[in-house]
């Protein structure tokens, strides 16, 4: 079981590294926000699955499921808010 947990944690870490490198190399702020959305979806799902594999159905894993669900919903909202703010601040070149 620990191999599978390690696999999901490895996916979360790899996705985080990929997103961080994308934020470093991509020139436009809107492209960077897309990389960030990819991180939010992929890493939160991986960590939630790893938590359920480790604990089964427990209070802690259910709390993480709730937290990641709220986080995903808010991340979608915040991506649009951020994109709008960046567009208004920097125009089409953002």
């Amino acid at each position, binding site marked *: 079981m*620990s191999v599978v*947990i*390690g696999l999901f*944690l*490895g996916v*979360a*870490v790899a996705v*985080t*590294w990929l*997103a*961080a*490198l994308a*934020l*470093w190399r991509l020139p436009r*702020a*809107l492209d*960077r*926000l897309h990389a*960030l959305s990819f*991180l*939010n979806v992929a*890493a*939160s799902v991986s*960590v939630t699955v790893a*938590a359920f594999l*480790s604990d089964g159905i427990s*209070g*802690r894993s259910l*709390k*993480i499921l*709730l*937290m990641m669900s*709220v*986080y995903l919903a*808010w*991340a979608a*909202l*915040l991506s649009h*808010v*951020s994109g*709008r*703010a*960046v567009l*208004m*601040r*920097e125009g089409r070149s*953002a």
Partner: protein
Amino acid sequence: MNLWMAAILALLPPLALATALAWRGRPGQRFAAYQLAGSVTVLILTLLAFATDQASITDLALTLVLLNLPGTMLLAVFLERWI
């Protein structure tokens, strides 16, 4: 060292990179780096609950998630109008 702690240590360089990116660049780029730092911190706190076997650390991550929405929206308004 268990799997969870190894994952936390592996997440520290992206957090440092996010901090460095938030330090320079245009406001929009710095705003994206700030959000990356928040996302990585949520992941680290969640994994820390398993690495230390302290379930209460999950509440820290939950608090950060709950405060992330108003904080980022406020910063977005400032970015849009004044910064």
